[in-house]
């Protein structure tokens, strides 16, 4: 009886293990990475403060997720725990996640310098 080629291949393959079948039948490929190199340079973080006593802490808010309730709590706690802490409130820097996001974030370094801010707490990512 005549067996067509594709059936011959099928019956023939029954005698081989899976890996042997693959090795026998399949071509192999050497493939490259689908990601691309990092284009941003790693930046050294600003030195941390030795203490919060007498420091100016800036708040930066995205105007989301109850920052209007939480930042006042944070301000009160910091003032209670550390003498002379001054707070530069989020409204000084504007809504950093709204339609003016790019513009306001670009202005942030100058704003922090102008207000002599020692450290920043930004939020809220939720």
């Amino acid at each position, binding site marked *: 009886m005549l067996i067509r080629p594709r059936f011959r291949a099928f019956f023939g393959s029954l005698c081989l293990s899976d890996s042997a079948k693959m090795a026998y039948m399949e071509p192999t490929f*050497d493939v490259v*990475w689908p990601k691309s190199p990092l284009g941003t340079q790693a930046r050294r973080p600003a030195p941390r403060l030795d203490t919060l006593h007498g420091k100016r802490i800036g708040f930066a808010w995205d105007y989301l997720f109850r*920052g209007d309730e939480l930042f006042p709590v944070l301000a009160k*706690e910091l003032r209670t725990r550390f003498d002379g802490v001054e707070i530069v409130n989020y409204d000084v820097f504007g809504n950093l996640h*709204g339609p003016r996001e790019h513009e306001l974030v670009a202005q942030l370094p100058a704003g922090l310098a102008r207000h002599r801010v020692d450290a920043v707490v930004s939020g809220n990512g939720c």
Partner: protein
Amino acid sequence: MSLVCEGFERQARATGRGLGFDRLPIAVMKGHVDAQSYDDMVASFVGYTLEQIVSGLTTSIDWDDEGSAEPAALDVVASGTIDEIHRTFVANGWSDGLAIIPPTRERVEAFIAVTGHDPWRVLGTIRPSGRDVTVWAIAVNAVMAGCEAVQLPVLLALAEVLLDPHYGVEHSGNTTGADALVVINGSVIDDLGFNHGPGAMRDGAGAPNTVVARWLRLFLRNVCGFTADEHDKATFGNSSRVVLAEDEGALAEIGWEPFAATFGHPAGTDAVTVARMNSGAMVGSVFGSTPEQIVPYLADGLARVTGWDLTHVCGLGQGHYSPLLVLSPVLARVFGRAGWSKAQVQQALYEHARIPAWRFEKLIGEWTNLTAGRRTLVELVGAGLVPPVFAETGDPDRLVPIVTSPDKLMIAVAGDPNRTNAYVFSNDGAHGDWTSKAIDRAYSTDLVCRVDNREACT
């Protein structure tokens, strides 16, 4: 230092890395603040988060600037049969799980050679991953997706959209899980075989529509970093949307400009226009032979698909809500027969697509908390944040628009030419805002620039 809710640490660290701040201190708030009473939230914040904030501000950070140990573009990262390559790519998070064409160096090289582009050209650095967008990386993902080499100019234009700050690609993993919708215009539609007819938005109804959209998802994953391990914080997510090609023949017949003309492209320009869409809804079996008869139902569809998205009218995305109505050609012809311009249709839809003011206010400031301060529309108009039309009276039952002006209502024409249906999309405002780029299909002049001749690439 940054404050995040529980579950956002990984994203925050990945975002920090993308900006070059690998060791940015993070303070975590337990659970999600929106699901907590005020007292519970404050108790948890003071008891659990506060110390992390103090520590983050005062504890020195170990830092080194050692280079990345990641593979180079031409490094072989896997070898094996097609099944083995597939499994490796899935295991490493480099694939969506559908079958891929193995991106061998030779195949990627051949893919780029067809259009003569410089493989090493850097189009820009993408957010939020901080990775370079290279022609090579675009092509590797295109090969994987099953794209054809002649589609590379379309992909390059899409990459330019992603790099445009106006689009806001960094938001592609946000709350709503919105997914991009690409609208394509120009002779490229017919030349490359994009489907604008029956099943225009169905997976597989047009191979170019499907594979170009798949490339976009793979590129967002591999180059932009939108995986659950990094930047994708979608609660549910949307499925990928195939590319929507407009029926330019139908448009010409009724005298309307192509969709891309809305964004300043002269008619006939090959262009892609992209926005991220939150939701979609069918406006089925539209009945009527005049504009006046069909506008109310179409407008109802736009109002019906709009909810959370109103935060992009005022609040999170001030004035950026701009939903899309896709008309089948036969419905567009109803307007064309009556001599209506697209602007007239937009005006009519603007007047009809309205919801009660109380519902608007609940959506932006009671059922959600995305417009800080829970202000009423009357207060928002008073503050100059929305146009006066939103507070013509103080009656909570008054009807108000869903967008700030008629031109915010986008209209495209596609689909089965003889079926009386429409489709509406709500967009994600500034988080994937309408952005359009021309497609340059001219053969590149980077002829001397080849993979092996990197120094010749400018």
